[in-house]
């Protein structure tokens, strides 16, 4: 297991390098410059670019990024907060924490609500409960997060003012509710659907019949025998969910005025603040890669038939 994790981490470094190259090429493909304003003259722009090394050939610029990243230096902001180290902007100013909090709560909600709902629907399949859940989950999967966010905002902040319209720095529980629901609704519903199918499949397996023949209690059959087996496809899906929730936060943060990393990232793209774009992309990618690794390890724990090392051969 240890050597497997080590191998994965070494592999991740190469993935991150690749992500850096792609991000670098993409952000340079957008026309414009961080120093371009209505008043600036071409000379001023050229001077500023020379100061930050933006006049050098692309491969040199890329190499400079890689060199400084290997040293742990994420560069300094060019425009948004000129001269401030990017590391401070992401980690010190609470933006990262805000986004991560939103993401983790949404992920937890999706798992803790989606899985039981799916189990209930499967256990009471064909009943009115199953029917209701099917309608709700289908609607939940069909409505995009940003539409739901707007609807929730109108319904529960404007018409019935229970929750704040601006969640801000997420000071209290109330401020979390709407953003977390908007961010996780799709995933909650999708996991519930996936769980229902997978639980139904598990319930009809021969080993469930064996457990029944042994005289195991129904509760134990569902919670011990069926649940663990039906979790396997859901766990596989959790990797993409994590990525989706992290990238999805961009929209939700804007709608609920949460000054998180997602919202800031969009502003940086608009003002071509290259170092921040690069750093944010790399940090979020690293997060997703770590989550994927965690998912794979959990997968191994839940299903003993899976051998992690075989993939490497």
């Amino acid at each position, binding site marked *: 297991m240890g050597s497997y994790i080590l191998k994965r981490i070494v592999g991740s470094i190469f993935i991150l390098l690749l992500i850096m190259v792609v991000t670098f090429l993409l952000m340079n493909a957008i026309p414009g410059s961080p120093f371009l304003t209505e008043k600036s003259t071409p000379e001023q722009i050229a001077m500023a670019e020379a100061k930050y090394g933006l006049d050098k050939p692309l491969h040199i610029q890329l190499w400079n990024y890689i060199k400084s990243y290997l040293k742990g230096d994420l560069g300094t902001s060019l425009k948004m907060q000129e001269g401030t180290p990017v590391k401070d902007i992401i980690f010190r100013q609470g933006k990262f924490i805000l986004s991560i909090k939103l993401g983790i709560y949404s992920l937890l909600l999706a798992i803790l609500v989606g899985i039981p709902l799916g189990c209930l629907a499967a256990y009471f399949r064909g009943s009115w409960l199953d029917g209701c859940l099917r309608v709700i989950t289908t609607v939940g999967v069909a409505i995009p997060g940003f539409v739901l966010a707007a609807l929730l905002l109108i319904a529960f902040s404007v018409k019935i003012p229970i929750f704040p319209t601006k969640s801000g720095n997420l000071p209290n529980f109330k401020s979390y509710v709407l953003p977390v629901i908007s961010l996780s609704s799709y995933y909650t519903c999708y996991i519930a659907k996936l769980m229902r199918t997978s639980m139904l499949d598990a319930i009809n*397996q*021969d*080993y469930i*019949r*064996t*457990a*029944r*023949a*042994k*005289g*195991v*209690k*129904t509760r*134990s059959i569902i*919670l*011990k*025998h069926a*649940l*663990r*087996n039906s*979790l396997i496809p859901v766990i596989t899906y959790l990797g993409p969910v994590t990525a989706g929730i992290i990238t999805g936060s961009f929209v939700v943060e804007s709608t609920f005025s949460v000054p998180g990393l997602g919202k800031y990232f969009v502003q940086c793209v608009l003002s071509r603040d290259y170092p921040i774009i690069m750093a944010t992309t790399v940090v979020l990618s690293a997060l997703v890669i770590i989550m994927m690794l965690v998912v794979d390890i959990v997968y191994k*724990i*839940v*299903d*003993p*038939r899976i051998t992690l090392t075989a993939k490497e051969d």
Partner: protein
Amino acid sequence: MEEYNVPLNIEETVENDVPSGKEEHGENDVLLKVEDLKVSFFTPAGEVKAVDGISYTLGYNEVMGIVGESGSGKSVEAYSIIGLLQNPGKVIGGKVEFEGEDLLAYTPEQMRQFRGNKVSMIFQNPMTCLNPVYTIGNQLMEALTCHNSKPAKKKDENGEPSPEGEEPEEEEYTHVSKQEARQRAIEMLELVGINNAEKRMDQYPHEFSGGMRQRAMIAMALICRPKLLIADEPTTALDVTIQAQILELMKDLQKKENTSIIFITHNLGVVAEICDRVSVMYAGRIVEQGKVNDIFYNPQHPYTKRLLASIPRLDEETTERLVPIEGTPIDLLNPPEGCNFGPRCSECMKICLRQKPPFAEVGEGHISACWLHYKDMIDKGEAEK
């Protein structure tokens, strides 16, 4: 076939040297009595009478074979005894008595306690019958601990078993401790011929071969020392060498543990190997029932005769062709008015298509449901009482 057991007139000839706490049983003691059992499946297309009034008795230490082709209702019948029938299947009539107790009147909780404890079951495909994510030991021990009926204290509300946990059940009970259960599980694995049982306990089903898994299934089924084991085609999914080993093992254990067995199969060779008595089923009904030798050497019902003619024999000329039974089984959605086998029977008479044949006693403990046995009466015009 060793005559250690006389069907319909049950004698216990095996010495009771196993400390299983089983009492001696008299000649006519009946372990299981099934009377006119009817099971139907209510499908959108209509009622399918999967089991249409079957009756038999099973004595202590007896091995009864139930043979029949696919869809003849043999498994459904067994499932309804043990209460494993799933929707849309329903027992719609008849009686099942186990040691004098009416099983059909049991509450689901009583039935759960009964299953695996007094009666257990092994299934056809050992590859899929064990839960792939728990160790063999865990599953064996569970078979034992789930029958510990007296919880020390009610922990059900807060002590919820975690789905990731290996043994979420154990703490709830005091009856059989985890160590005792483990010890017993190891003993059982050794009993069914699994070497290195201690180590095997902690392995997962995918680390076992097919034959080994079926052995583990048998160990699991017998761990509570049930009085009756229902074996639903336990050797069908195994290759012949392993089949022979498993049959040998079951025969051996049957004697050691004094368990009665209902052996469901479509393999007549297996029946000859292990059973004392045989019921031949066709389209939800028993057509012939008798001692294994009577069924094989003196079959009375045309279906049994044709069935036996369709299997290859070692002592026959090699040029001899096998005789198939013409036609296909009846549609259980629209069963015929008369004998179910009538449409396929070469000796079918007029009455066969009009009325179901009653059982005729054709020998000691040998019954057959066919109008041919009443031929003399029919010829005299007396049959339709």
